[in-house]
């Protein structure tokens, strides 16, 4: 299960989500500006307050780290 925590006006969030869509990867799109529970979960898990945060089956990455994400999703 892939979950993306983002806010509406964050440029890297847009880039990350487009990247996932381009590679046909399904993900849960969580808007932490509207979902307070999710925001707290994100802060709790990552010990920081910036977006995007992507949770790939339990492995958490802060920011759009393309190489690491490709690795975890087994993309070339």
């Amino acid at each position, binding site marked *: 299960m892939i979950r993306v925590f983002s*806010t509406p*006006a964050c440029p890297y969030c*847009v*880039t990350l989500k487009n990247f996932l869509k381009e590679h046909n990867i399904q993900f849960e799109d969580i808007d932490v500006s509207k979902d307070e529970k999710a*925001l707290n979960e994100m802060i709790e898990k990552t010990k920081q307050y910036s977006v995007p945060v992507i949770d790939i089956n339990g492995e958490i990455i802060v920011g759009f780290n393309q190489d690491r994400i490709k690795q975890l999703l087994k993309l070339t």
Partner: protein
Amino acid sequence: MLYDLIIIGGGPAGITAGIYAARKKLKTLLITKEWGGQITKANEIENWPGTKKISGIDLIKQMSAQLKQYEIEIEENKEVIDLNKKGDSFKIRDNDKEYETKAVIIATGKIPRTLNIPGEEKFKGKGVSFCATCDAPLFKDKTVAVIGGGNAGFNTALDLIKYAKKVYILEFLEEMRGDPILKEKLEQSGKVEFYTNIAVKEIKGKQFVEKLICEDRKTSEDKELEVDGVFIAVGMMAKVDFAEKLVELNQIGEIVIDKDNYTKTPGLFAAGDITDIKYEQIVIAAGEGAKAALAATDYLNKK
């Protein structure tokens, strides 16, 4: 492989240079850390000719999509760390590979100016932010400080009052310099307190930001301000370490160019906010990118 042209930077200047270079059939590579740069922080752009209103993110999406339709090589998410001369050509190194090219256009724009105070780096992403458009929603019902009483600071505060419970605006000088009309909107919210003559000396906290140490410049007294977040809005700065050997920089670190975008090194051009042009706007950056590409084309044709 020897490129005709390498463009460094994927904002309006770099992208426009890329479109022009590709259409001139120059063998071109564009290297960028991210698409857009400053433009992505703009919520509403109403002065891009031909478009009544558009967000920065959407405009840069359109620009980069247009660029990608042309024959041009692109390296995304890469940062140039070295630029050197190699005989008549140039050698460029990013955090991955090395490239060789006959001409270069530097279009790396500007980055947020930092305060260089203790805690600023440590708490980045843990309460310190440079982008209210991005991060304001994360401070719902919290108390935040904005450092900077100019338009950047006021616009930051306008984003924040939608979510935060309280916003302090801290200005170093005697007076707030932002537009009165913005100040009015902020005052009307009832959430904003304005302080002038404040020098922020340190950002403190355990895991996240908890307080600021501020000096009242008139009384030299130190004061503690409890906050959950601090947004730094003290302007933009030019930083182009990798090119310092080959270009002339002015007093504020901008690359000095002539009216045809030539730097002091032949074959090395620069465009946009990184240069010493007087006015900095998206449409100007795009125009400068086009000029630089055309100048580079002429330069290459003469060789």
